[in-house]
Each structure stands twice: as structure tokens, then as C-alpha cells.
């Protein structure tokens, strides 16, 4: 068995797919792995994949043209997922590879995504679900604060690499705002300038000082929002378990209205 070890990123995995295919070792003898610290097995030969933009783009183009854009999107979302999940029975990169091999062998390839009884497909389904769910949670629960300079700032802590999906949403929603979305987990940020498209940038040395200087009205609106939030609940129906079931506690820290409730308990 040959194991192609790829970097845990879309480009890394797609380069892995390219190299594996190119190696002509026979699909049955190949596995991909995105997990650098996985256990090393005897009798397996390990091949390190160096991410290569050109190769990854070739694979993207092939996938889009032979299997359609929605198939490709599923693969992207899958690559964005964290992948360290006990529910999974297969490595992320390997699932992607196996699914592509299966799909390209069929006349209506994109349909393989519906064959949930296939191990690689159920794995892709699960990863994609993780990414979608978390992106949706972020879109729901992240909060912007207006800084002194009028820029809207938000800090998020997602497990999966969902920033592009979230940034896309807010670019459409706030075309005329300048905003900065900071993913503190992955140390990257999406920067959006009014009427432009957004850009993802490295944010390792983000100046955390600016983001604590709020505009004058900011505190005012936070207070108004908290008042609204406290008032809208119906006393006779108070149900904190239902509340934290619907908005899991790990998202509370980045909201305005629930943050203070975390420290109290």
C-alpha cells in the first residue's frame, strides 16, 4: 500500500489527488492521508506530497468540468472541515480521493454523492455537514462591533475553516461597509472594503489594540440590544436548557447578549 501524505488544506489534498493519479500505482494500492501525525504502519510506503497550486488547479478544473460545480463545492467544504472527528471512519483526504475515483468511473459521476452507504461518501457527507453547520452557526451568532474608524469588526473561533463561506455571506449583506472578520482559531482574517470583494489575509500579527477602541455609539447600541434581549423572553416559559440546546455554550463568548452570563456561572 502506498500512502500519499498531504497537507491539510484544499490545495494540499487536491495536489495529493493529482500525484496519486499520476503515479499509476493503481487506485486499489493507494491511500491519501491528511493527518501528519497518524501512526506509521509497517509494509506501507509513505510518499510526501508538496502542495502545488498548478496541480491543484488542474484537478479543480477537471472536477468542475467533468462532475459539475456543486460536486466541487462539496469537495471544498469537505477540505475546510477540521476532520478530527471520532465519528469518521476514514481520513478526510482519502475519502475525497476515493470519491473522486468512484465518480470519474461512472457516467453520471456527481450522483455518487447520494450513495450514502459507501464509506467514503458517508465520510464526505459528515465532513460537509460539519462545515455547513458551523458556517451557519457563525452567520447566525457572530457579532460586529463598530470601531472608532467606522469599521465593523468581528472575532470568531470556529473549529473548521469556514471563514470564506462566512465572508461571502457578509460581502453580499453589507456591500457598503468596511469590515474585518477575524478567525482567531486559524489566525486569518477576511478584509472587506466598501463595494469591493473580500480578501483573506494572514492575521498572525493583527493589532489587537485597534479592535478595542470602539465608536461612541457602540456601547449605546449594545445596551439597547441587551435590553431588547432581556425583555423579549416570556417569563412563564423560561427554559435555560432549551436555550443552550439551541445556542450551544461555546458560541456565547462571541455574542454581546450572552457573554456576561457565561462568567457568572
Amino acid at each position, binding site marked *: 500500500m502506498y500512502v500519499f501524505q498531504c497537507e491539510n488544506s484544499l490545495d494540499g489534498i487536491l495536489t495529493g489527488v493529482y500525484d496519486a493519479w499520476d503515479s499509476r500505482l493503481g487506485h486499489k494500492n493507494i491511500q491519501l492521508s491528511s493527518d501528519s501525525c497518524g501512526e506509521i504502519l509497517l509494509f506501507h510506503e509513505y510518499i510526501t506530497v508538496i502542495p502545488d497550486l498548478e496541480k491543484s488547479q488542474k484537478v479543480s478544473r477537471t472536477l468542475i468540468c467533468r462532475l459539475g460545480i456543486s460536486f466541487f463545492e462539496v469537495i471544498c467544504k469537505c477540505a475546510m472541515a477540521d476532520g478530527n472527528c471520532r465519528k469518521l471512519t476514514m481520513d478526510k483526504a482519502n475519502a475525497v480521493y476515493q470519491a473522486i475515483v468512484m465518480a470519474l468511473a461512472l457516467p453520471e459521476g456527481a*450522483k*455518487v454523492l*447520494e*450513495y*450514502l*452507504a*459507501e464509506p467514503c*461518501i*458517508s465520510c464526505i*457527507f*459528515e465532513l460537509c455537514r460539519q462545515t455547513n453547520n458551523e458556517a*451557519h452557526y457563525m*452567520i*447566525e*451568532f*457572530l*457579532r*460586529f*462591533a*463598530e470601531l472608532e474608524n467606522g469599521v*465593523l469588526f*468581528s472575532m470568531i473561533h470556529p473549529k473548521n475553516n469556514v471563514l470564506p463561506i462566512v465572508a461571502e455571506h*457578509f460581502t*453580499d*449583506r*453589507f*456591500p*457598503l*461597509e468596511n469590515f474585518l472578520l477575524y478567525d482567531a482559531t486559524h489566525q486569518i482574517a477576511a478584509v472587506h472594503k466598501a*463595494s469591493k470583494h473580500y480578501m483573506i489575509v494572514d492575521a498572525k500579527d493583527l493589532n489587537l489594540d485597534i479592535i478595542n477602541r470602539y465608536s461612541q*455609539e457602540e456601547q449605546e*447600541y449594545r*445596551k*439597547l*440590544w441587551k*435590553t*431588547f*434581549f*432581556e*425583555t*423579549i*423572553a*416570556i*417569563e*412563564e*416559559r*423560561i*427554559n*435555560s*436548557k*432549551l*436555550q443552550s*440546546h*439551541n*445556542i450551544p455554550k461555546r458560541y456565547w463568548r462571541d*455574542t*454581546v*447578549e*450572552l457573554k456576561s452570563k457565561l462568567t457568572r456561572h
Partner: protein
Amino acid sequence: MNYAADNQNLITNVYKNSAPAVSLSPTVMEKLKILTDAAKYDVACTSSGVDRGGDGTGIGNAKSCGICHTFAADGRCVSLLKILFTNECVFNCSYCQNNCTNDIPRATFTPEEICTLTIEFYRRNYIEGLFLSSGIIESPTYTMGLIYQAIYKLRTFYRFQGYIHVKAIPGADPVLIEKVGFLADRMSVNLELPTSDALKKLAPCKSRRTILTPMRQIQNGITENKNELMLYRKAPKFVPAGQSTQMIIGATPENDFQIMSVAEGLYQKFGLKRVFYSAFINVNQNPGLPALSSPPPLLREHRLYQADWLLRYYHFTVDELLSEDKPNFNIYLDPKCDWALRHLEYFPVEIGTADYKTLLRVPGIGAKSAKRIVKARRGSTLDFPDLKKIGVVLKRALYFITCSGRMMYPTKLDEDYICRSLLNDSSQIPREIREQGYRQLSLFDDVSFAAPGGNPLRCRERS
């Protein structure tokens, strides 16, 4: 569109005298508190039903799945800035705290205040849009005019493209309702109570006719607009997210069968998108109504929502679920399980071959899983572990299905046996109810739930 000039006239006509003088004008904070408190009993707060990208010139878009932004202490979703324009009211509906005989602090927003709050909350991603309702100030038409003015400003001056839900005020000038309909995403007229008798008793200023008239008008508007949109894709959209309504449950003695029949009628005859059910809370301590000390009928409300779901997405009819002889839902089992137990002749269902509609009727299989099953079995034969991954709730479904002719465990297709097994699964009692301990017990005091024979483990009365 040449609405603008026209609109301006309308505003000046309707909104002659500036907002009524409030003696000690309260701050925006005080107003927000009063007018949120007054709006909180309205349960329709979803932001779903319309997909609209931003056009790049303003702020906002809309997602048809709806987006919740937080959950209040009662566990309910907060999606829209849900407020009243004013809590002044000339009417005296006895279930409502804004009723003119109540001595409570009153406040009225200005259109400008509503716009600023909406925009500033929206920019911070606190909300998905605005839900605007109102008490009746001066007259229904006057009130509707104020609402129109606020959302007109929000849509045109602020170029707000997020979600707007507006209450149509019964009795308001139809011209105004139509104009609002071209600005709002969703409109609703509250049915308030399931029967016209109950309405007469509790809301003497309202009548079935004044409520159903705007409902019909909006329905017709939506239908006409659909035809128009087929001809000109750019025609302005009228209430694109559809119409909804709400009924108060438990204030008056109607049974579930009556309530669900009303809901079914509304879906079929008025083309409603949603009917909401609101467990009654006696805010006015009105002696003629169920007391405040008794908890709101939450489990009943929950069962009605489940049944409502079955009507809208699972091709059930009310007659299949309830009847004159069995007019109320089983408190121990959800309506679908309850139905399945009374129709064991349809089961077990073979996963490999059953059609979509048949799968939908299996307890534990939802609409999504049913769709996935139909597709996935084209690729390979499905077994129980696969079903689990697909999202089927096996502990409920296992009594009713076979995979390649086999059941998951040897079980009996026997009503009492399955019923007992299902009840051992405590998730049958909805979690939010179960966890309220004492409240759950006191639900049994509710007359409509008293089980004849008093054996709580019997899942249904045999006649």
C-alpha cells in the same frame, strides 16, 4: 416605479397630525423596553421564505431558510427586531396586555427611531430584520399609515434589503395594506382565536370578517403578483415570503381537532405559509380565563406544531390524525407515532422498495432522511447502520421497517408492545417539557388531557 410621489401623498394624508404628544417623552431605551415587552407574545418571528441577494447599493439580503441570531432565556429564537409601533390601543381584547382598560406605561416610536434601531442592530448582526406590529392608535387605517411610513423610509431612504414582517391591521384601508405588501416580505393577520364565538367573547372589537378580509386581500395580491412575475420578471414583489397567522391556544375550550381543522382550512383556502400556535398566558389575570398560576399549555402547543408539520410536509390530513371521537392529541406519543400505532396494517415498510410517501409515514424517518434513502438505495443496498448515518432515528423506526426483509431486532408488530417500548424512550416526551419536571406533572391536571381510566401508561384510549 412611480410609486414615490403617490406614496408621499398617502403619508401626508394619513399622517396628518404628527405623532400624538406623549406627556413625558421617554428615551429610546424606555420605549424599546415597553414596546418589546408588548410584542413578545406574538410567536411568529421566523425570517424564512425568501431568497434575495443584496443589490450592492444598500444593506441587507435574505435567506429562505431563515436565520436565528440568538435564543432568549425561554429558548425561543430571536431573529427579527420584534416590536410594536405603539402599545396605545383603542380596543379591549381581554387576552391582551395593551387593552385600553389596562393601566400600563405606554409609548410610541417615531418612524425614524424604528429605522435607526433596525439598521444599527442589523449592521452588528444582531438581527435578520424587522417584525413590526402595533396597537391601534386612533383607527386601524391611521395605525397602518404609521407602519407604512416607517417601512417605506426603511426600504427607500435607508435602502434596507433585509427581512421585514408586518402585521396587517384588520379594518385598515385596503390601499394601505397593498402598499405595505409591496415593501414587506411577509405579512400576517392574527386569527387570534380558533372560533368566531371565542373571538366575540374575548375580542369584542374584532370579528371574523374584519380579520379574514385583509387575509383574503393579501392572498389575492400574492396570486396576482405571481402571474405578473411570470410576465415581467422585474415586477415589484408582493409579500414574497407569504402570509402567516397565529392562534392562541388554551384560552378557550376548543379541542385539538377543531384547532387543526381551522389550520387545515387556512392552508387550503387562504394559501397561508404558516400557522403559529401560542400557548395562552393570562397576562391580565382575567378571571374569566385560565389562571396565570396554571402553566401555559406548552406540551399541547408542541403537539399542535408537530401535527402542523405533518400537514405541511408529510401529506397527512387532519381527519387521519384526529376525529370527533378522538378529538385531542395523545400527550405521550407524537402525532405520527400515534397514527402509526393505530395503522399497523401499513407496516413494516421495506426500506429497499417503499416509495417516498410511504417512507414519510414511518415514525423516526423525517422528510430529509426519506429523500436521502430514496437516492442512496440506488447506489447500494441499505442496512440499519447506513440508515443511522443518513439520519433516521432508529430507536423509533425499528418497529416499523425492514431492510432486505429483515427487522433490526425480532420484535412483535403489536400495538401494546410497541407502545410500551416507545414510551420507555423518554425522548418521546419533548425534551423542553420533560426537563421542566413539575410542570410536566401539572399538565395532567389540564382537563383536555385527563386520560379516561387514569392509566398514564396507556398510550391511547380504546373505544
